[in-house]
């Protein structure tokens, strides 16, 4: 028994663009060519033939027992391929891979459903496909149904379900497999807010039971919240493995940023960062004090500008905006070759959510932006359950007492000529 619940060692996976031999007619010429020794169809292992590409290259990592491990990366980075290899749906072209214990994958929940069967029948069907015995399903049946909240529709064929109901039933079955290793891919985007909270809770329960979780999501906030360690993939290669905060920062800084401005780029923002208690981070608690720094460089002399920062929420709505001028600093001036670093100290009186920082260099007189860096960096705030929305107005309950309602007065207006 190793300390790792799962482990990948130098894993490569090759895929082919276009079609394989799609009929016998294509196969026969291809085979004859191969027999005659002209290997233009498929190159020997290790190198790439025409139309082939590496979906994964030299991927190695281990996940310890009971750990929650995140995988982040943009579309096409190879995240789903890793999950398919882990769940044994595919095998690596090269390298070794080991999983210790029963593995369950929430890759596409409800994949095993048959549309003509009822919810009840599909619970048994999907449950056995996912590796439970009938006895286990019977034992957990009530829990599964209660979790899905679909008691009324149990005897309705699932083809009549809405897509949300379908996904809820699928997640409910999959979440009750009680695996040693749980793989979660982007399934938490299903259902409404309450159901998502339930899913998170269930995942925490599974983890509390000692299971190992591998979590793949574009929802970086969820990754930051769930996983201590993460892996950043880019075009099939491992870019970074380490604490989730650092990995997400690397990911965000490497992804495309919207930059622009009216002037030539001879006054430029070079860095925007958020630090808390002295170190750069991406996940914060509500009410925490953080410092937002903006660094700029001038190639030619610039005068009369201010530094502006704004915080927007996930939907790009402005949450907060401030600038050096409004904070009492006069017009700033930079000579050619000089750099400037401005640091704003703010208290994150924000509710739970994902927030982005925009930074601008603003000209005093013309009221135009020299330089604009939108979505320069992103951070997440973990809130308290008592607050929802964007702002944390630090609520407390000052009164909650009962009294008899006064007798209702007749409230009829009579119109008299």
């Amino acid at each position, binding site marked *: 028994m190793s300390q790792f619940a799962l482990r990948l060692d130098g894993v490569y996976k090759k895929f082919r663009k276009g079609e394989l031999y799609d009929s016998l007619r294509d196969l026969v010429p291809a085979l004859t060519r191969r027999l005659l020794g002209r290997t233009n169809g498929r190159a020997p292992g290790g190198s790439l033939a025409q139309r082939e590409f590496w979906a994964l290259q030299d991927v190695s990592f281990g996940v310890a027992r009971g750990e929650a491990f995140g995988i982040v990366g943009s579309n096409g980075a190879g995240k789903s391929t890793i999950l398919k290899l882990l769940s044994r749906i595919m095998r690596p072209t090269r390298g070794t891979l080991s999983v210790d214990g029963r593995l369950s994958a929430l890759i596409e929940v409800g*994949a095993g459903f048959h549309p003509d069967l009822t919810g009840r029948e599909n619970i048994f069907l999907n449950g056995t496909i996912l590796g439970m015995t009938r006895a286990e399903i019977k034992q957990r049946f009530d829990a599964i149904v209660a979790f899905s909240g679909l008691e009324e529709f149990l005897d309705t064929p699932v083809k009549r379900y809405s897509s949300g109901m379908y996904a809820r039933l699928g997640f409910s079955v999959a979440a009750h497999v009680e695996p040693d290793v749980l793989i979660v891919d982007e399934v938490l985007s299903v259902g409404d807010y309450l159901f998502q909270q339930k899913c998170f809770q269930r995942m925490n329960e599974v983890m509390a039971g000692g299971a190992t979780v591998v979590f793949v999501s574009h929802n970086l906030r969820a990754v930051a919240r769930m996983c201590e360690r993460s892996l950043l993939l880019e075009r099939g290669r491992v870019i970074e493995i380490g604490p989730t905060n650092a990995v997400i920062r690397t990911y965000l800084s490497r992804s495309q940023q919207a930059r622009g401005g009216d002037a030539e780029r001879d006054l430029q923002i070079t860095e925007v960062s958020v630090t808390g208690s002295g170190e750069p981070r991406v996940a914060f608690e509500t009410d925490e004090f953080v410092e937002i720094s903006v660094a700029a460089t001038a190639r030619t002399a610039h005068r009369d500008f201010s530094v502006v920062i704004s915080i927007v929420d996930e939907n790009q709505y402005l949450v907060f905006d401030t600038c050096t001028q409004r904070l009492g600093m006069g017009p700033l001036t930079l000579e050619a070759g000089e750099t400037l670093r401005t640091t704003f100290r703010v208290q994150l009186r924000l509710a739970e959510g994902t927030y982005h920082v925009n930074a601008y260099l603003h000209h005093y007189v013309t009221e135009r932006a020299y330089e604009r860096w939108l979505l320069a960096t992103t951070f997440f705030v973990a809130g308290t359950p008592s607050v929802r929305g964007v702002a944390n107005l630090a609520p407390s309950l000052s009164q909650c007492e009962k009294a008899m309602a006064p007798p209702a007065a007749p409230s009829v207006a009579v119109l008299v000529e």
Partner: protein
Amino acid sequence: MQTALKYLVARRDLLHTLAWREIRVKYKQSVMGMLWAVLMPAVIVFAGVLVRYGFAIFSGKSLETDDIASVSVRAIPWAFFVSSIRFGTNSLIANTTLVTKIYFPREILPMAAVLSQLMDFVVASVVLIVVLAVLHVGVSVQLLWLPVLIAILVLLTTGLVLLLSAASLFFRDVKYLVEVLLTFAIFFTPVLFEASMFGHWYTPLMLNPIAPVLEGFANVIVRHVPPPLPWLGYSAVVSVVLCCGALAVFQRVEPYFAESV
């Protein structure tokens, strides 16, 4: 292979559930329901009686009840064989979402297809028993051969279905090839007729490994004599070798299913 078999045994619940799913789905939203299990053998019997009637006129003999019983007894295993192959060949392609999304031993899909057809076989057999009773076909100790015959039939069918389902996943041609072969196979197989009617063509006919099984069914149920023994042994060997070989091949190519389907 041994570990694979152990794994299969561990997932027998899945085999049952998938077979049960096929049966459920087949009879849902259908008016005839279980009657469908009887329809195909009934059509074969009808065709068989017609053919036998033709033979009878040709040879100047009358059509005997034993002839009708013999055709009926052959029709049911043949119907099982044909529909298992037809249904099983498509079992992997029809379940693409499962093959590409969830891992489980894929052998279970074609096996469940065969198992669900076995259900039809049982239903049709019950009807057959009634028909045989009406035709006054008696019983004898030879009926003890039935489990052996059914075992060979199921092994042969499973072996073929394993090979064909995997092959059709890579090449869709297989599906159409199977359709064509199944349509005409009845002419090369002693279903509507008896192999012995063909004189020195008896040997080539019996080389078809399903032929001794069908002859066997007719022998033990209708004629109360043992099955054609050396030939049945041949069938048994072919079936076992085919089934083991097919399982080995299936497991070799299984890792490529998800990316090739």
